Every structure is written in C-alpha cells, then in structure tokens.
C-alpha cells in the first residue's frame, strides 16, 4: 500500500511540476484604494492566462520599505508615481514596465445619505464633528484631501476636527462605522462597480482642486517570473482590465 501511495505521490508531484512550468504564481502588492478593482482584474487575468495571482493589500510606503528589504513581490500597483519611480531609480524595479494604470478621483463621503450636498458645502457647516482624512505623508488621497481643503480655504477651520487614518481603507472605515461623519476617500472605494446607487452621500471633488492622483505600476527587478509579471502589468492596459478600472471610478 505504501508503495502505491508513494507512486501516486510521485505522479502528483510530476503533474504539479508540469503545471507549474506553464503557470507562474505572482505576488502583487496593491495600494489599499485599488484593492477591490485589483482583485477583479487578477481573477480575469488568472482566467485568461492560467497564471496564479496573489494580491497583498497595504499602504504604498509600507510596500516600498518591504521591497527594499527583499520582500518577494513581483509587481507593485502603487497609489502614487513617486514610489515606483524611486524603485526604478534604485534599480529595484524594471523601467520598461513602468506606466500609469489608473488616475484616481477624490470624493467627500458620508454614511449618512442626507449629509453631503452636491457642492461639498457641508464642510463649512457644524453638522459634523469629525472629518476622516488619510495621512498626507503616506497616502496620495490624503495629500489630495489637504490640497482640496487648502483650495477651499478651510484648512485652519476644520483642523481641530480632522482625524487621521493610517491608510485610505482605515480612513473609510472611520466613516463607515459612523465615528467620523465625513471622510475624504477614493471614488473607487465607495462606488459599486455594478452601477447601483451609491450608499450614503458624496461629493465628487472637482479635478482642479487637487493635483491628479496618478497611480503607477511596475515590475520588481528581483522577480523570478519577469515574463508573467510583465504580462500582468501589460494586462492592466487591456480593454478588459480598463472596463473594470473604469467601473470602479478611475480613469487612466
């Protein structure tokens, strides 16, 4: 029996080996704001190519530090342009693969369906106690929120009521749990991709209030599967992927 068992194990092992020769496994680091869209694109990519994609979600700055220390990521989908550019400059990412996969939009959002008006006037009112904003040092959406407040000349007026989320996901979480009445988050986080009505209320911040939030993708130089990783980064610009990117409220 043990002979039969070991023989079938060998067969299984050979089968796995044959399969892995064709299908690579990719570790993809994804900025928190893009996580839902990335999951969907990754699933389509797996279906179309047979490769396996493992998505890790986190703050771009954290991923940078981890990649510096040799974390086994093959691809980085950053929330900004500076981080991938920095990795390319240090020789830790492949310059030929660097491109903007999405341009994000900032919204002012509330779980309360009646709180946020179409012009964001609510920011000037006393109908709220806490405004949740991502850390501007760490998150591009936090920086965009700061620029928006500055453009509205509200920076000083709201400062005492600002609570800071460590990343854009936590920033939304403060508002979803109702602890903060308002939050500056990414449109992609609060817009259901099926086009259904958005829960809560929101104000789409006009583009001229903040510098465009360009998000770049790049292949990490230390990858063991450069071909599959490049395929994935290229796939982000395919029609199929762009349909998803658009559905989540991003342009490119």
């Amino acid at each position: 029996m043990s002979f039969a068992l070991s023989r079938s194990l060998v067969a299984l092992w050979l089968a796995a080996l044959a399969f892995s020769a064709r299908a690579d496994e990719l570790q993809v680091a994804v900025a928190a704001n893009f996580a839902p869209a990335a999951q969907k694109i990754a699933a389509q990519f797996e279906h179309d190519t047979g490769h396996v994609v493992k998505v890790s979600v986190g703050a771009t700055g954290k991923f940078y530090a981890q990649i510096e220390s040799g974390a086994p990521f093959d691809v980085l989908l950053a929330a900004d342009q500076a981080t991938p550019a920095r990795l390319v400059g240090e020789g830790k990412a492949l310059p030929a693969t660097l491109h903007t996969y999405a341009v994000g939009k900032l919204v002012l959002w509330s779980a309360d369906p009646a709180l946020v008006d179409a012009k964001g006037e609510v920011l000037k009112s006393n109908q709220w106690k806490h405004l949740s904003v991502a850390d501007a040092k760490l998150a591009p959406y936090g920086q965009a929120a700061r620029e928006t407040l500055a453009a509205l000349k509200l920076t000083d007026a709201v400062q005492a009521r600002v609570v800071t989320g460590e990343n854009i996901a936590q920033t939304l979480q403060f508002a979803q749990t109702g602890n903060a009445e308002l939050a500056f988050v990414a449109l992609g986080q609060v817009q259901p991709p099926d086009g259904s009505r958005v829960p809560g209320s929101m104000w789409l911040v006009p583009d001229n209030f903040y510098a465009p939030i360009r998000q770049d993708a790049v292949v990490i130089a230390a990858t063991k599967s450069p071909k599959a990783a490049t395929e994935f980064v290229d796939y982000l610009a395919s029609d199929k992927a762009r349909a998803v990117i658009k559905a989540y409220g991003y342009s490119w």
Partner: protein
Amino acid sequence: MDADWSADLQAVALTLKLASVVTLLLLVLGTPLAWWLAHTRSRWKAPLSALVALPLVLPPTVLGFYLLMLMGPHGLVGQATQALGIGLLPFTFTGLAIASMLYSMPFVVQPIQTAFEAIGARPLEAAATLRAGPWERFAHVALPLARRGVLTAAVLGFAHTVGEFGVVLMIGGNIPGATRVISTQLYSHVEALEYPAAHRLAALLLAFSFAVLLWVYRLRPRGALLAAGTPTA
C-alpha cells in the same frame, strides 16, 4: 527636523500621561477585583478570570475593532455615552484611556491577585483574632504583605500601556495631543520612510522597556517574571 522632534516630544508626553492615568485607575479598580478573585469560591470566578485575561491572547486589533464598533454611534456604549451627554469616545483621550485599561488589565490584576493568594489565610485570621475588621485586615495586613505584587502590577501596567499600538491605531485617529502616542508616531515615521526619526523613538522605547524589566527582575530576584504571578504573555 525640529518640527518633527517637537511632535515626537508631544507624543512622548501624551504617552506618559496616558500610562499614568491608566495605571492609577487600574490600581484603584483592579485591586478590589484581584482581592475578590483571590478569595471567592463563586462560580463566576472562572468566567471573570477568563475575561480579565482575554487581552493577553486576543490580537489588539480585535479589541480595537470591537471597541470602534461598540463606542461608535451605532454601538451600545456609544449610544449610552451619547444619552449621558458625554458624546462619542473614539478619537478622544478618554476613549483611549478606557480602551487601554481593558488592554492592560491582566498585567495589573494578575500580579496583585497572585500576591494576595500567596499571603494565605493565616495572617488574616491572626489579625481577625486581634479584632481587626475586614477593612483593617485588607489595608494594614494584606496590602502591605502584597506590596511587591502591587508594585510589579503598577510597573507592568504602565509599561504595557506605553507599548500599546494596535488598539490605539484602531480607535485613536492619530490626533496630536489627544491620541497620537509614541507607538503610532513611530509607526508613521517608519511608513513615511523617516528612518532617523523612527530610530530615535524606537531606541527610546527599547531602552525604557529594558529598564522597566530590569527593575521588575530586581524586585523579584528569585524566579522568572512569567512564573511569579505575572501574566503568561
């Protein structure tokens, strides 16, 4: 750099304030609880002991997440505090202090409880035969005999609150002077790749923690920290 440093100092000052408040309140509330746990034969002893010890094994983020829900406008605690006119607790120093008390409770209650148990019944019975009342037995006999346990509890409770991170991150909102403590400030530095500033705070915490533990071990020259009635994690 200077602005950074003053923000760091503010975080240090706030952390010391938080740890002091939490330690004092825990000593006041935890000592009677430890006394009760040390002497009761109630069937509630086991569940209550388990409840007190929960933060030892629970990831702080679990505690932080539930507190965020509970203290929020839709949570039971949040609705109660709003009804009482206190307002909501997340993002406030008070909320942070309450969360820290829950988080550090086992580190205060368990050493005191063990110290009370170690005294045994004899000194208290002897005091009773000398007509000492319950309060006198507690205050003049038990407490002095348990002083090392109480001191260990205070030091560990303080140090553990200083090192608290997950709960603060979940319910703090990183507000300077209210909820931005050393550990979250350090985390921000690391995330923003400000490694020199991160090193400064990290070294400070490391030195502080080592000094605290050194002191605790000096207090109890025999026996290991974890075996001697202090929490097991």
